[in-house]
Protein backbone atom coordinates (compact mmCIF):
# COMPACT_ATOMS: atom_id res chain seq x y z
CA UNK A 1 0.00 0.00 0.00
CA UNK A 2 1.75 3.22 -1.15
CA UNK A 3 1.84 5.75 1.65
CA UNK A 4 1.77 9.39 0.54
CA UNK A 5 1.34 12.74 2.20
CA UNK A 6 -0.67 14.47 -0.50
CA UNK A 7 -2.60 12.65 -3.22
CA UNK A 8 -3.86 14.99 -5.94
CA UNK A 9 -6.63 13.54 -8.11
CA UNK A 10 -6.70 15.16 -11.57
CA UNK A 11 -3.75 16.69 -13.45
CA UNK A 12 -5.48 19.73 -14.93
CA UNK A 13 -4.45 23.28 -13.95
CA UNK A 14 -5.86 23.02 -10.40
CA UNK A 15 -4.21 19.68 -9.65
CA UNK A 16 -0.81 20.43 -11.18
CA UNK A 17 -0.50 23.75 -9.34
CA UNK A 18 -1.73 22.18 -6.07
CA UNK A 19 0.95 19.49 -6.37
CA UNK A 20 3.80 21.87 -7.11
CA UNK A 21 2.81 24.35 -4.41
CA UNK A 22 2.57 21.60 -1.77
CA UNK A 23 6.00 20.30 -2.75
CA UNK A 24 7.53 23.77 -2.95
CA UNK A 25 6.18 24.71 0.48
CA UNK A 26 7.26 21.43 2.10
CA UNK A 27 9.86 19.56 -0.02
CA UNK A 28 9.98 16.65 2.43
CA UNK A 29 6.42 15.59 1.56
CA UNK A 30 5.54 12.72 -0.79
CA UNK A 31 3.18 14.21 -3.35
CA UNK A 32 1.53 12.10 -6.06
CA UNK A 33 -0.49 13.57 -8.96
CA UNK A 34 -2.94 11.18 -10.62
CA UNK A 35 -4.28 11.61 -14.16
CA UNK A 36 -7.15 9.38 -15.27
CA UNK A 37 -6.46 9.80 -18.99
CA UNK A 38 -3.42 8.35 -20.70
CA UNK A 39 -2.04 11.80 -21.48
CA UNK A 40 -2.09 14.94 -19.36
CA UNK A 41 -3.99 17.69 -21.21
CA UNK A 42 -6.13 15.43 -23.35
CA UNK A 43 -8.92 15.43 -24.32
CA UNK A 44 -9.26 19.22 -24.42
CA UNK A 45 -12.66 20.34 -23.10
CA UNK A 46 -12.06 24.07 -23.17
CA UNK A 47 -12.18 27.24 -25.27
CA UNK A 48 -8.61 27.84 -23.99
CA UNK A 49 -8.82 31.59 -23.32
CA UNK A 50 -7.12 33.19 -20.27
CA UNK A 51 -6.40 36.71 -19.03
CA UNK A 52 -2.81 37.94 -19.30
CA UNK A 53 -2.26 39.10 -15.71
CA UNK A 54 -3.67 35.98 -14.08
CA UNK A 55 -1.68 33.68 -16.32
CA UNK A 56 1.60 35.43 -15.50
CA UNK A 57 1.23 34.51 -11.84
CA UNK A 58 1.89 30.92 -12.87
CA UNK A 59 3.62 30.79 -16.25
CA UNK A 60 5.25 33.17 -18.73
CA UNK A 61 3.49 32.97 -22.10
CA UNK A 62 5.88 35.00 -24.30
CA UNK A 63 7.43 32.59 -26.79
CA UNK A 64 6.08 29.52 -24.99
CA UNK A 65 4.99 26.58 -27.17
CA UNK A 66 1.81 26.20 -25.08
CA UNK A 67 0.58 29.73 -25.95
CA UNK A 68 -1.24 29.63 -29.30
CA UNK A 69 -2.16 33.28 -29.72
CA UNK A 70 -1.86 36.65 -27.99
CA UNK A 71 -5.15 38.54 -27.80
CA UNK A 72 -5.33 42.35 -27.87
CA UNK A 73 -8.97 43.00 -28.71
CA UNK A 74 -12.40 41.85 -27.60
CA UNK A 75 -15.28 42.14 -30.07
CA UNK A 76 -18.81 41.85 -28.72
CA UNK A 77 -21.41 40.94 -31.31
CA UNK A 78 -25.08 41.77 -30.90
CA UNK A 79 -27.74 39.27 -32.06
CA UNK A 80 -27.98 41.15 -35.42
CA UNK A 81 -24.14 40.86 -35.87
CA UNK A 82 -23.50 44.54 -34.97
CA UNK A 83 -19.92 44.55 -33.71
CA UNK A 84 -18.72 46.50 -30.68
CA UNK A 85 -14.96 46.67 -30.41
CA UNK A 86 -13.43 46.97 -26.97
CA UNK A 87 -9.78 47.68 -27.64
CA UNK A 88 -7.21 47.19 -24.94
CA UNK A 89 -3.63 45.99 -24.84
CA UNK A 90 -2.42 42.61 -23.62
CA UNK A 91 -5.87 41.32 -22.82
CA UNK A 92 -5.01 37.67 -22.83
CA UNK A 93 -4.00 34.50 -24.56
CA UNK A 94 -5.51 31.50 -26.24
CA UNK A 95 -3.65 28.48 -24.93
CA UNK A 96 -2.85 25.09 -26.38
CA UNK A 97 -4.23 23.15 -23.42
CA UNK A 98 -2.64 19.86 -24.50
CA UNK A 99 0.78 21.48 -24.15
CA UNK A 100 -0.12 23.87 -21.34
CA UNK A 101 -1.39 21.16 -18.98
CA UNK A 102 1.65 19.03 -19.80
CA UNK A 103 3.87 22.03 -19.02
CA UNK A 104 2.21 22.51 -15.62
CA UNK A 105 2.50 18.80 -14.80
CA UNK A 106 6.18 18.89 -15.81
CA UNK A 107 6.71 21.84 -13.45
CA UNK A 108 5.09 19.81 -10.67
CA UNK A 109 7.39 16.89 -11.50
CA UNK A 110 10.41 19.20 -11.46
CA UNK A 111 9.51 20.13 -7.88
CA UNK A 112 9.55 16.43 -7.03
CA UNK A 113 5.93 15.40 -7.51
CA UNK A 114 5.35 11.89 -8.87
CA UNK A 115 3.01 12.16 -11.87
CA UNK A 116 1.06 9.02 -12.82
CA UNK A 117 -0.97 8.95 -16.05
CA UNK A 118 -3.67 6.38 -16.82
CA UNK A 119 -4.31 6.16 -13.08
CA UNK A 120 -7.94 6.58 -12.02
CA UNK A 121 -9.21 6.92 -8.46
CA UNK A 122 -12.34 4.75 -8.20
CA UNK A 123 -13.28 4.95 -4.51
CA UNK A 124 -12.01 6.27 -1.20
CA UNK A 125 -12.85 5.83 2.45
CA UNK A 126 -11.42 7.42 5.56
CA UNK A 127 -9.76 5.34 8.21
CA UNK A 128 -11.42 7.47 10.84
CA UNK A 129 -13.40 6.80 13.97
CA UNK A 130 -11.98 5.95 17.39
CA UNK A 131 -8.83 3.99 16.54
CA UNK A 132 -8.33 5.27 12.97
CA UNK A 133 -5.39 7.38 11.89
CA UNK A 134 -7.64 9.70 9.86
CA UNK A 135 -5.93 8.83 6.57
CA UNK A 136 -7.83 8.34 3.34
CA UNK A 137 -7.57 4.98 1.61
CA UNK A 138 -7.94 5.65 -2.10
CA UNK A 139 -8.50 2.85 -4.63
CA UNK A 140 -6.59 3.55 -7.83
CA UNK A 141 -6.94 1.57 -11.06
CA UNK A 142 -3.85 1.68 -13.23
CA UNK A 143 -3.26 -0.53 -16.30
CA UNK A 144 -5.67 -3.17 -15.07
CA UNK A 145 -4.12 -3.29 -11.59
CA UNK A 146 -5.77 -1.92 -8.50
CA UNK A 147 -3.83 -0.40 -5.65
CA UNK A 148 -4.82 1.33 -2.45
CA UNK A 149 -3.02 4.59 -1.69
CA UNK A 150 -2.97 5.80 1.88
CA UNK A 151 -2.95 9.60 2.01
CA UNK A 152 -2.91 12.23 4.76
CA UNK A 153 -4.59 14.72 2.44
CA UNK A 154 -6.48 14.17 -0.81
CA UNK A 155 -6.92 17.16 -3.12
CA UNK A 156 -9.84 16.64 -5.50
CA UNK A 157 -9.08 18.47 -8.74
CA UNK A 158 -11.17 16.06 -10.76
CA UNK A 159 -13.28 18.49 -12.74
CA UNK A 160 -16.96 19.02 -13.32
CA UNK A 161 -17.79 15.35 -12.63
CA UNK A 162 -15.82 15.28 -9.35
CA UNK A 163 -16.02 12.01 -7.48
CA UNK A 164 -13.60 13.02 -4.72
CA UNK A 165 -16.13 15.62 -3.56
CA UNK A 166 -18.89 13.02 -3.45
CA UNK A 167 -16.76 10.46 -1.61
CA UNK A 168 -15.88 13.10 0.98
CA UNK A 169 -19.57 13.84 1.52
CA UNK A 170 -19.54 17.30 -0.07
CA UNK A 171 -22.50 18.53 -2.10
CA UNK A 172 -21.17 19.18 -5.60
CA UNK A 173 -24.51 19.02 -7.40
CA UNK A 174 -25.69 21.94 -9.51
CA UNK A 175 -29.16 23.13 -10.58
CA UNK A 176 -29.87 22.81 -14.32
CA UNK A 177 -30.25 26.60 -14.72
CA UNK A 178 -26.59 27.02 -13.73
CA UNK A 179 -25.12 24.44 -16.10
CA UNK A 180 -23.93 25.65 -19.49
CA UNK A 181 -23.89 22.94 -22.13
CA UNK A 182 -21.00 23.65 -24.47
CA UNK A 183 -19.95 22.40 -27.89
CA UNK A 184 -16.97 23.55 -29.91
CA UNK A 185 -15.25 22.86 -33.22
CA UNK A 186 -11.73 23.72 -34.24
CA UNK A 187 -12.37 25.46 -37.57
CA UNK A 188 -9.66 25.97 -40.18
CA UNK A 189 -9.65 28.24 -43.21
CA UNK A 190 -12.00 30.89 -41.79
CA UNK A 191 -11.80 34.66 -41.98
CA UNK A 192 -11.67 36.74 -38.78
CA UNK A 193 -9.38 39.12 -36.88
CA UNK A 194 -6.75 36.75 -35.43
CA UNK A 195 -5.84 39.21 -32.62
CA UNK A 196 -9.40 39.38 -31.27
CA UNK A 197 -11.76 37.14 -29.38
CA UNK A 198 -15.40 37.39 -30.47
CA UNK A 199 -18.35 36.94 -28.13
CA UNK A 200 -21.88 36.90 -29.54
CA UNK A 201 -24.90 37.16 -27.27
CA UNK A 202 -28.33 36.09 -28.53
CA UNK A 203 -31.20 33.95 -27.36
CA UNK A 204 -31.57 32.60 -30.88
CA UNK A 205 -27.88 31.56 -31.12
CA UNK A 206 -26.95 30.49 -27.59
CA UNK A 207 -29.84 30.98 -25.11
CA UNK A 208 -28.59 31.77 -21.60
CA UNK A 209 -24.94 31.82 -22.71
CA UNK A 210 -22.89 33.05 -25.66
CA UNK A 211 -21.11 31.91 -28.79
CA UNK A 212 -17.36 32.48 -29.19
CA UNK A 213 -14.51 32.60 -31.66
CA UNK A 214 -11.11 32.17 -29.98
CA UNK A 215 -8.17 32.34 -32.43
CA UNK A 216 -5.54 29.59 -32.42
CA UNK A 217 -3.66 30.97 -35.45
CA UNK A 218 -4.42 33.05 -38.55
CA UNK A 219 -7.49 31.40 -40.08
CA UNK A 220 -7.82 28.81 -37.27
CA UNK A 221 -10.05 29.16 -34.21
CA UNK A 222 -11.98 27.43 -31.48
CA UNK A 223 -15.55 28.18 -32.51
CA UNK A 224 -18.15 27.18 -29.98
CA UNK A 225 -21.03 28.10 -27.76
CA UNK A 226 -22.50 27.48 -24.36
CA UNK A 227 -26.22 27.49 -23.59
CA UNK A 228 -28.63 26.72 -20.77
CA UNK A 229 -30.75 23.74 -21.80
CA UNK A 230 -33.83 25.02 -19.92
CA UNK A 231 -33.98 27.99 -22.33
CA UNK A 232 -33.59 26.13 -25.61
CA UNK A 233 -36.15 25.12 -28.23
CA UNK A 234 -35.32 21.45 -27.69
CA UNK A 235 -32.13 21.26 -29.76
CA UNK A 236 -28.89 20.28 -28.04
CA UNK A 237 -25.70 22.39 -27.92
CA UNK A 238 -24.16 20.66 -30.94
CA UNK A 239 -27.27 21.35 -33.04
CA UNK A 240 -27.26 25.04 -32.06
CA UNK A 241 -23.57 25.24 -32.94
CA UNK A 242 -24.06 23.55 -36.31
CA UNK A 243 -26.74 26.12 -37.14
CA UNK A 244 -24.51 29.07 -36.14
CA UNK A 245 -21.53 27.79 -38.08
CA UNK A 246 -23.66 27.07 -41.15
CA UNK A 247 -24.54 30.79 -41.18
CA UNK A 248 -21.20 32.29 -40.15
CA UNK A 249 -18.54 29.91 -41.50
CA UNK A 250 -20.15 27.59 -44.05
CA UNK A 251 -16.78 26.85 -45.67
CA UNK A 252 -14.72 26.25 -42.51
CA UNK A 253 -13.05 22.85 -42.20
CA UNK A 254 -14.02 21.15 -38.94
CA UNK A 255 -10.82 19.54 -37.69
CA UNK A 256 -11.79 19.01 -34.07
CA UNK A 257 -14.89 18.68 -31.91
CA UNK A 258 -15.38 18.73 -28.18
CA UNK A 259 -18.19 19.14 -25.67
CA UNK A 260 -18.38 19.82 -21.96
CA UNK A 261 -20.20 21.41 -19.09
CA UNK A 262 -19.36 24.77 -17.52
CA UNK A 263 -20.89 25.36 -14.10
CA UNK A 264 -21.92 29.03 -13.92
CA UNK A 265 -22.83 28.87 -10.26
CA UNK A 266 -20.99 30.00 -7.16
CA UNK A 267 -18.42 28.07 -5.13
CA UNK A 268 -19.85 25.02 -3.35
CA UNK A 269 -20.84 25.77 0.26
CA UNK A 270 -18.07 23.61 1.68
CA UNK A 271 -14.90 22.84 -0.27
CA UNK A 272 -13.21 20.78 2.45
CA UNK A 273 -13.67 17.88 4.83
CA UNK A 274 -11.27 16.13 7.19
CA UNK A 275 -8.20 15.36 5.04
CA UNK A 276 -9.84 16.58 1.82
CA UNK A 277 -9.94 19.76 -0.25
CA UNK A 278 -11.58 20.20 -3.66
CA UNK A 279 -10.39 22.80 -6.16
CA UNK A 280 -11.21 24.21 -9.59
CA UNK A 281 -14.25 23.06 -11.58
CA UNK A 282 -14.83 20.34 -8.97
CA UNK A 283 -15.67 23.08 -6.45
CA UNK A 284 -17.54 25.25 -9.00
CA UNK A 285 -14.78 27.88 -8.90
CA UNK A 286 -15.75 29.40 -12.22
CA UNK A 287 -16.51 33.03 -13.02
CA UNK A 288 -20.28 32.74 -13.48
CA UNK A 289 -20.38 35.71 -15.88
CA UNK A 290 -17.62 34.67 -18.28
CA UNK A 291 -17.50 30.93 -17.67
CA UNK A 292 -13.72 31.25 -17.31
CA UNK A 293 -12.12 28.71 -15.01
CA UNK A 294 -8.44 28.11 -15.80
CA UNK A 295 -6.88 30.92 -13.73
CA UNK A 296 -9.44 30.38 -10.96
CA UNK A 297 -8.44 26.72 -10.85
CA UNK A 298 -4.74 27.54 -10.59
CA UNK A 299 -5.32 30.10 -7.82
CA UNK A 300 -7.41 27.56 -5.90
CA UNK A 301 -4.77 24.90 -6.51
CA UNK A 302 -2.14 27.20 -5.04
CA UNK A 303 -4.23 27.78 -1.91
CA UNK A 304 -5.00 24.05 -1.54
CA UNK A 305 -1.35 23.02 -2.03
CA UNK A 306 -0.04 25.55 0.49
CA UNK A 307 -2.76 24.68 3.02
CA UNK A 308 -1.97 20.95 2.63
CA UNK A 309 1.75 21.51 3.22
CA UNK A 310 1.20 23.66 6.31
CA UNK A 311 -1.44 21.34 7.77
CA UNK A 312 0.75 18.25 7.42
CA UNK A 313 3.74 20.02 8.97
CA UNK A 314 1.54 20.99 11.90
CA UNK A 315 0.26 17.41 12.15
CA UNK A 316 -3.33 18.62 11.89
CA UNK A 317 -5.31 17.65 8.78
CA UNK A 318 -8.68 17.98 10.50
CA UNK A 319 -11.72 19.53 8.91
CA UNK A 320 -11.29 22.59 11.11
CA UNK A 321 -7.68 23.10 10.01
CA UNK A 322 -8.56 22.77 6.31
CA UNK A 323 -11.44 25.24 6.58
CA UNK A 324 -8.69 27.88 6.27
CA UNK A 325 -8.51 26.92 2.58
CA UNK A 326 -12.18 27.70 2.06
CA UNK A 327 -11.94 31.05 3.84
CA UNK A 328 -8.86 32.04 1.83
CA UNK A 329 -10.58 31.15 -1.44
CA UNK A 330 -13.76 33.05 -0.57
CA UNK A 331 -11.70 36.12 0.27
CA UNK A 332 -9.58 35.84 -2.87
CA UNK A 333 -12.33 35.21 -5.46
CA UNK A 334 -15.31 33.35 -4.05
CA UNK A 335 -17.00 36.51 -2.76
CA UNK A 336 -16.53 38.19 -6.15
CA UNK A 337 -18.18 35.22 -7.83
CA UNK A 338 -21.25 35.73 -5.61
CA UNK A 339 -21.50 39.30 -6.97
CA UNK A 340 -20.98 38.18 -10.57
CA UNK A 341 -23.67 35.58 -10.10
CA UNK A 342 -26.17 38.26 -9.06
CA UNK A 343 -25.27 40.33 -12.13
CA UNK A 344 -25.70 37.25 -14.33
CA UNK A 345 -29.19 36.78 -12.92
CA UNK A 346 -30.09 40.40 -13.67
CA UNK A 347 -28.73 40.18 -17.23
CA UNK A 348 -30.88 37.15 -17.97
CA UNK A 349 -33.83 39.45 -18.64
CA UNK A 350 -32.20 41.28 -21.57
CA UNK A 351 -33.73 40.18 -24.87
CA UNK A 352 -32.25 40.26 -28.37
CA UNK A 353 -33.93 43.55 -29.37
CA UNK A 354 -32.47 45.25 -26.31
CA UNK A 355 -28.97 43.89 -27.00
CA UNK A 356 -29.10 45.14 -30.61
CA UNK A 357 -30.08 48.60 -29.41
CA UNK A 358 -27.39 48.58 -26.69
CA UNK A 359 -24.71 47.74 -29.27
CA UNK A 360 -25.70 50.76 -31.38
CA UNK A 361 -25.64 53.04 -28.32
CA UNK A 362 -22.12 51.94 -27.42
CA UNK A 363 -20.90 52.33 -31.00
CA UNK A 364 -21.79 56.05 -30.84
CA UNK A 365 -19.04 56.51 -28.25
CA UNK A 366 -15.72 57.24 -30.03
CA UNK A 367 -13.53 54.13 -29.91
CA UNK A 368 -10.67 55.82 -28.04
CA UNK A 369 -13.09 56.95 -25.32
CA UNK A 370 -14.70 53.55 -24.96
CA UNK A 371 -13.81 52.78 -21.35
CA UNK A 372 -15.97 50.39 -19.37
CA UNK A 373 -17.09 53.28 -17.13
CA UNK A 374 -18.16 55.45 -20.06
CA UNK A 375 -19.95 52.57 -21.79
CA UNK A 376 -21.81 51.90 -18.59
CA UNK A 377 -22.83 55.53 -18.08
CA UNK A 378 -24.03 55.91 -21.69
CA UNK A 379 -25.88 52.62 -21.53
CA UNK A 380 -27.66 53.60 -18.33
CA UNK A 381 -28.86 56.92 -19.76
CA UNK A 382 -30.19 55.38 -22.97
CA UNK A 383 -31.39 52.11 -21.51
CA UNK A 384 -32.96 52.51 -18.06
CA UNK A 385 -33.68 48.76 -18.06
CA UNK A 386 -30.02 48.38 -17.12
CA UNK A 387 -30.40 50.24 -13.82
CA UNK A 388 -31.32 47.09 -11.83
CA UNK A 389 -28.22 45.43 -13.29
CA UNK A 390 -26.06 48.37 -12.30
CA UNK A 391 -27.54 48.29 -8.82
CA UNK A 392 -26.39 44.71 -8.43
CA UNK A 393 -22.77 45.78 -8.87
CA UNK A 394 -23.03 47.40 -5.48
CA UNK A 395 -24.90 44.78 -3.46
Amino acid at each position, binding site marked *: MPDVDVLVVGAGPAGAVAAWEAKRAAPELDVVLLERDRAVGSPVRCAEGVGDAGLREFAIPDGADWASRRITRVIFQAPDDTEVLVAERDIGWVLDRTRFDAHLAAEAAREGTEVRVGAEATAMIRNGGGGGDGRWHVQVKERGREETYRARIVIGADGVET*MVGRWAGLDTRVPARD*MESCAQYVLQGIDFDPDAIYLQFSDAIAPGGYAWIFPKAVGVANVGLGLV*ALKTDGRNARQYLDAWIARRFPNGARTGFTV*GGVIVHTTIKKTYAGGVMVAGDAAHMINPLSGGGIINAMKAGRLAGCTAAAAIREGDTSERRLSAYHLAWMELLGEDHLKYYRIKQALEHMDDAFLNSLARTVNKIPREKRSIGRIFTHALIKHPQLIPVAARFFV
Partner: protein
Amino acid sequence: MRRVTPDTIAVVDLAVCDRCGLCLPLCPPEAIHLELNILTVDDATCTGCEKCIAPCPVGALAMTPLIPSPQPMAPAHA
Protein backbone atom coordinates in the same frame (compact mmCIF):
# COMPACT_ATOMS: atom_id res chain seq x y z
CA MET B 1 -32.22 5.61 -2.51
CA ARG B 2 -35.41 6.73 -4.20
CA ARG B 3 -38.74 6.48 -2.40
CA VAL B 4 -41.04 5.91 -5.39
CA THR B 5 -40.33 3.63 -8.35
CA PRO B 6 -40.40 5.80 -11.50
CA ASP B 7 -42.13 4.76 -14.74
CA THR B 8 -39.12 5.74 -16.82
CA ILE B 9 -35.42 6.12 -16.11
CA ALA B 10 -32.47 7.66 -17.96
CA VAL B 11 -30.28 5.54 -20.23
CA VAL B 12 -27.11 6.54 -22.04
CA ASP B 13 -26.22 5.71 -25.63
CA LEU B 14 -22.49 5.02 -25.31
CA ALA B 15 -22.05 5.32 -29.08
CA VAL B 16 -23.04 9.01 -28.81
CA CYS B 17 -21.76 9.88 -25.29
CA ASP B 18 -18.53 11.94 -25.29
CA ARG B 19 -17.72 11.17 -21.61
CA CYS B 20 -17.67 14.90 -20.74
CA GLY B 21 -19.20 14.31 -17.30
CA LEU B 22 -21.61 17.27 -17.52
CA CYS B 23 -24.57 15.12 -16.39
CA LEU B 24 -22.98 13.90 -13.14
CA PRO B 25 -23.48 17.05 -11.01
CA LEU B 26 -26.97 17.56 -12.52
CA CYS B 27 -28.26 14.27 -11.08
CA PRO B 28 -30.01 14.92 -7.73
CA PRO B 29 -29.63 11.31 -6.41
CA GLU B 30 -26.10 11.01 -7.90
CA ALA B 31 -27.15 7.99 -9.96
CA ILE B 32 -24.75 8.70 -12.85
CA HIS B 33 -21.18 7.42 -12.72
CA LEU B 34 -18.17 7.81 -14.98
CA GLU B 35 -15.52 5.18 -14.43
CA LEU B 36 -12.85 3.80 -16.75
CA ASN B 37 -14.28 5.96 -19.53
CA ILE B 38 -17.75 4.39 -19.31
CA LEU B 39 -20.79 6.41 -18.28
CA THR B 40 -23.48 4.46 -16.44
CA VAL B 41 -26.87 5.31 -14.96
CA ASP B 42 -27.70 3.26 -11.88
CA ASP B 43 -31.26 2.09 -12.58
CA ALA B 44 -31.87 1.36 -8.90
CA THR B 45 -31.10 4.98 -7.94
CA CYS B 46 -32.40 7.03 -10.92
CA THR B 47 -35.64 8.78 -9.96
CA GLY B 48 -36.67 9.54 -13.54
CA CYS B 49 -36.49 13.32 -12.97
CA GLU B 50 -35.11 13.92 -16.51
CA LYS B 51 -32.77 16.73 -15.34
CA CYS B 52 -29.87 15.13 -17.23
CA ILE B 53 -31.64 14.71 -20.57
CA ALA B 54 -31.79 18.16 -22.24
CA PRO B 55 -28.39 19.49 -21.05
CA CYS B 56 -26.41 16.69 -22.73
CA PRO B 57 -24.54 18.61 -25.48
CA VAL B 58 -24.81 15.68 -27.92
CA GLY B 59 -28.16 14.17 -26.91
CA ALA B 60 -26.72 10.91 -25.59
CA LEU B 61 -29.25 10.50 -22.76
CA ALA B 62 -32.88 9.44 -23.16
CA MET B 63 -35.70 8.14 -21.00
CA THR B 64 -36.76 4.50 -21.21
CA PRO B 65 -39.53 2.53 -19.46
CA LEU B 66 -38.40 0.85 -16.27
CA ILE B 67 -39.55 -2.72 -16.65
CA PRO B 68 -40.22 -4.33 -13.27
CA SER B 69 -38.41 -7.57 -12.66
CA PRO B 70 -40.68 -10.56 -13.34
CA GLN B 71 -42.35 -12.28 -10.42
CA PRO B 72 -41.10 -15.79 -9.64
CA MET B 73 -43.37 -18.30 -11.33
CA ALA B 74 -45.33 -20.80 -9.30
CA PRO B 75 -43.95 -24.33 -9.68
CA ALA B 76 -45.79 -26.32 -12.30
CA HIS B 77 -47.60 -29.46 -11.13
CA ALA B 78 -47.86 -32.46 -13.28
